[in-house]
């Protein structure tokens, strides 16, 4: 039944598209990142490591990398804290409420990213809903700054990636055999104890997968950080955007793109190793 030629014929159109329009362009960036940028003239022919050494030595760039990773960690933690109870509720409630909640979780996922960021600007701006409300009830005298800083980015990105986390956690919770928890209950374990000794550990692979996904998507997000962070409060993705679109410094931009890619791949690879060890250490 093995007919390799037929399989290759079926798979090759997409494979060729990915090779030409995805893999090749990414690899072509590599040499660019080792060239020097000459203002006004573009990429020079001389080879250099300075694009990479600058990221490590220059405090400004280091801060942006650190900020990006910190933002990723905070957003991941928040989506977990908000998402786990919701996923648990969805797994335990009636089919009707589960379906309803699923649609409510998916709907923002499909809504345009720009529109969602726009919504948060309306809510978080100096004259936005939150500040107006706090000033109306007299809690504060002048607006507190919720945009163009870490707070705004974290709120916006948590909102955007929460659905991914919830869906991952939901499938992990639904995969726990029901009788395991019932067995724990017959052994006179209380609800909280069952949760912390049975449910939570058994969903660890789902938690890991969801966290990796959210972290990776957060650190490479462009639209939301740009709109909620403005042109000055930068993260890696917006920095890459500016290097290419405003400064036209492609060597610097590509080196950042590679650092971001390496971080992403390293995290996915590391998570894969941990997941394999959990699933029994074989292979």
């Amino acid at each position, binding site marked *: 039944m093995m007919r390799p030629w037929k399989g290759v014929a*079926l798979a090759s159109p997409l*494979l060729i598209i990915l090779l030409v329009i995805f893999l090749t362009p990414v690899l072509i*960036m590599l040499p660019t990142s080792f060239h020097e940028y000459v203002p006004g003239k573009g990429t020079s022919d001389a080879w250099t490591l300075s694009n990479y050494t600058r990221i490590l030595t220059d405090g400004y760039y280091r801060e942006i990398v650190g900020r990006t990773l910190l933002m990723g960690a905070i957003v991941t933690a928040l989506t977990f804290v908000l998402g786990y109870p919701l996923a648990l*509720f969805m797994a335990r*409630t009636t089919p009707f409420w589960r379906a309803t909640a699923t649609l409510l979780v998916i709907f923002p996922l499909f809504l345009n990213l720009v529109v969602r960021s*726009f919504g948060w600007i309306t809510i978080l701006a100096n004259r936005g809903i939150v500040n107006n409300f706090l000033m109306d009830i007299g809690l504060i005298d002048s607006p507190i700054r919720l945009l163009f800083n870490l707070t705004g980015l974290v709120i916006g990105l948590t909102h955007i990636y929460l659905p991914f986390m919830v869906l991952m956690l939901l499938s992990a919770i639904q995969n726990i055999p029901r009788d395991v928890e019932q067995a724990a209950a017959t052994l006179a374990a209380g609800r909280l104890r069952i949760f912390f000794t049975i449910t939570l550990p058994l969903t660890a692979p789902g938690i890991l997968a969801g966290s990796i996904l959210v972290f990776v998507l957060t650190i490479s997000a462009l639209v939301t950080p740009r709109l909620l962070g403005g042109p000055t409060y930068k993260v890696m993705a917006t920095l890459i955007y500016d290097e290419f679109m405003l400064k036209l410094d492609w060597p610097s931009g590509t080196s950042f*793109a590679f650092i971001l890619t390496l971080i992403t791949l390293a995290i996915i690879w590391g998570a894969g190793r941990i997941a394999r060890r959990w699933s029994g250490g074989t292979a």
Partner: protein
Amino acid sequence: MTRPSVLLTAFAGLVLIFLQLPVIVVAISAFTETSYLTFPPQGFTLRWFGEVLTDPGWLSAIGFSLLLAFMATFASLVVGTAAAYAISRRMIPGSEAIASFLMAPLVFPAVVIGVALLQFYAVVGWRGNFAALIAAHVVLTSPYVVRACLSSLSGVKIDLKEAAGTLGASGFTTFRLVTLPLLKPGMVAGGFFSFITSLDNVPVTIFLLGPGQTTLPVKIFTAIDQGGVDPGLAAISTILILVTGTALAIAERWVGFSRFV
């Protein structure tokens, strides 16, 4: 099993409200009579909807986005379904590795794909080329088609095809009458994801547009980035919310597609 406690239910409800919050705010503020965005809106008017829907700039951006999304989805369905079929039947060596490669664009930083293609298209002279833009979107949208089709195909067990064969169906008839109908829900769901993803994309598209070209999300993005917010943006966003919500409801009813997420 124990039902969720009151505390858990209340918390889940709050999180669900949090998820809808920006959507509700945008939709409501689009009806304000003021020329600046304010919440709660003052008065009620449909003026901003009228304005964006008669503005040639917005209309051409909408048209361009829809055409791009349609073409990218069509192409993704053709190449993605074929690839998923080959992988699910293990017709090629290394199916697992190939599947991972096909899924890679889902987790690969989109902005990196964007700048990589910017440089590549600049070198080969494809920047502003519509077909090249479609190809770039296929890279982003095909993983959704492949994933949904693989999930559907896992339901087409080998014994169904054997049963069709023993009942007298040829290979092609079996494909037409058994495999294809069972593949349909996956293709519908994958096509839906694909369309939304293409319609939503900024981080790749923005680097590849030529002079005079713009998509709807890029136009909104640029407008906010450069000029800030106004009720016209809220109106166009509300239209997107309505379109997405309707499409989601239809797709859910048609193939129960939330199981493919």
